[in-house]
């Protein structure tokens, strides 16, 4: 091994630039490990480097806002050009909401806003200030019991790979809130904005019909 590639001759990594003088490197790393939110948030900010969010261009709106997510008031710093999916996943750590296409063409990012199914990838976070946002994480009951749609998904073996499932469930929850006993066609219509590449559509329909009904098994199998 040539001398100039010997580790001893290389300059020490300069971590100070990332760590304030008051915090040791060890404390900082422990803090990051303890806080998943910090990991995802800092990762997010680094990937934003090319987008030059100019701190001087605060614009007409106040970047700091409080979002009502899953019944909690969550203060968060949101860029003007940030979508709700970005905020939920990378600022609030709610990664149950998936990003498939980020173009409103797949439905994986579906959440409910004031009870209405919405694509969070195609919603500006600043446009939902003061509104009630529910994600897949917000469905379980106070004691951790699953929402009836979630339980029915398990009972009916609804998902195959599962990636689109949070979005499918949120669409189903929005439907059942408005129409507790839908027909199979109404369910099909309500879930039509959610793609499933595994093609488990019929299983999803079975699950939602089960959640809407009296618990009887509705699938043919």
């Amino acid at each position: 091994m040539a001398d100039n590639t010997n580790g001893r001759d290389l300059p020490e990594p300069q971590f100070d630039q990332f760590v304030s003088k008051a915090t040791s490197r060890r404390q900082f790393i422990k803090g990051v490990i303890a806080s998943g939110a910090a990991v995802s948030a800092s990762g997010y900010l680094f990937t934003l480097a090319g987008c030059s969010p100019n701190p001087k261009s605060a614009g007409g709106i106040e970047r700091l806002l409080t979002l009502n997510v899953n019944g909690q008031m969550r203060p968060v710093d949101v860029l003007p050009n940030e979508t709700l999916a970005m905020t939920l996943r990378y600022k609030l750590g709610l990664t149950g909401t998936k990003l498939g296409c980020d173009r409103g063409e797949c439905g994986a990012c579906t959440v409910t806003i004031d009870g209405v199914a919405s694509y969070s990838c195609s919603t500006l976070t600043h446009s939902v200030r003061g509104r009630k946002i529910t994600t897949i994480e917000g469905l379980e009951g106070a004691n951790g019991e699953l929402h009836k749609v979630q339980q029915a998904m398990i009972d009916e073996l609804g998902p195959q790979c599962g990636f689109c499932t949070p979005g499918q469930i949120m669409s189903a929850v929005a439907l059942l809130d408005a129409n507790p006993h839908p027909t199979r066609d109404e369910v099909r219509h309500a879930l039509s904005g959610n793609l499933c590449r595994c093609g488990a559509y019929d299983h999803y329909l079975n699950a939602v019909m089960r959640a809407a009904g009296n618990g009887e098994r509705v699938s043919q199998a």
Partner: protein
Amino acid sequence: MSRDMMSAFELYQPDSVQGAVDLLAKFGKDGWALAGGNDSFDWFKDRIKRPKYVVDLGGIASLKGVREMPGGGVEIGALTTLTDIERNSVIQGKYKLLADAARRVASPQIRNSGTIGGNVSQDARCWYYRYGVNCYRAGGNTCFADTPQGQNREHCLFGASRCVAVSPSDTAPALVALDATMVVLGPKGQKEVKADDFFIGPNIDIQRMTVLEKGEVLTAIRLPAEWAGARFYFEKVADRNTWDFPLVNIAAAIKVSGAAGSEKIDAIRIAAGAVQCVPRRLTVVEGVVTGQPKTEDTAKLAGQSAVRGATPLNFNHFKIPLLQNLVTRAIRDA
């Protein structure tokens, strides 16, 4: 995902229409009026349009809702969502054509956030144009769709003028058939434009699809009492039932008289989408069937007359029988 992060802009959320118009006047060509965002965000994420100032109209309460007007018509705020229009009892009762058209737009979630104003003001859906190439519509001097290799299955049959893109809206033909009036507010004040004239082709201005100029906001759409409760027919044919834009859609409002079985067509307005850059009002069909008995023969003749003059591109010949059949069905089944 940073690829899909929109480029930075300043966001303004005015609470009055006048406030929005003032802001847009101030920002000029750097401004962008945002409604539901389903069209805008695609442009922003692809970094093809990079406005410096985005004016979000979503917080303006006066732009939302359906109001009945003295004299029997209705006024629909431009920011009313397609779901609200689809479910509105007045629209369902008097102007079912529009409710049927709104129900066929995109997907449930898009209808929940997408607005009627945005649906009629959306930009051309030609994928060459959307890809960001320097085509006529983007200010260049080529059409990439109308070439021997160009993929133009979704493009126009009528009215090509350098650009061959079509009007992608499902609600636009319904509004033309209902003889709607569009209310536009701009720096020079308010103007009212008939739906027939609101949409413009590439021969008038190749870089926009409507008469809306930068800084102007479509505030409301008025449906006159004249066509309330008429016989209606709406049908959309698309590759998929959800999401897809129409290959052809048809909207008709028909007034008939006489007993069932021997009905006569007294008056009709009929328009087709996705066959021209504007929703195509089928005036020839209207002329052919007005005063005629509402029979299979009349319907057949109407279909034949609808496609007269169609100039297909390499891959969209199928749209000719499609349009013909849809017109025939509209006259026969309305």
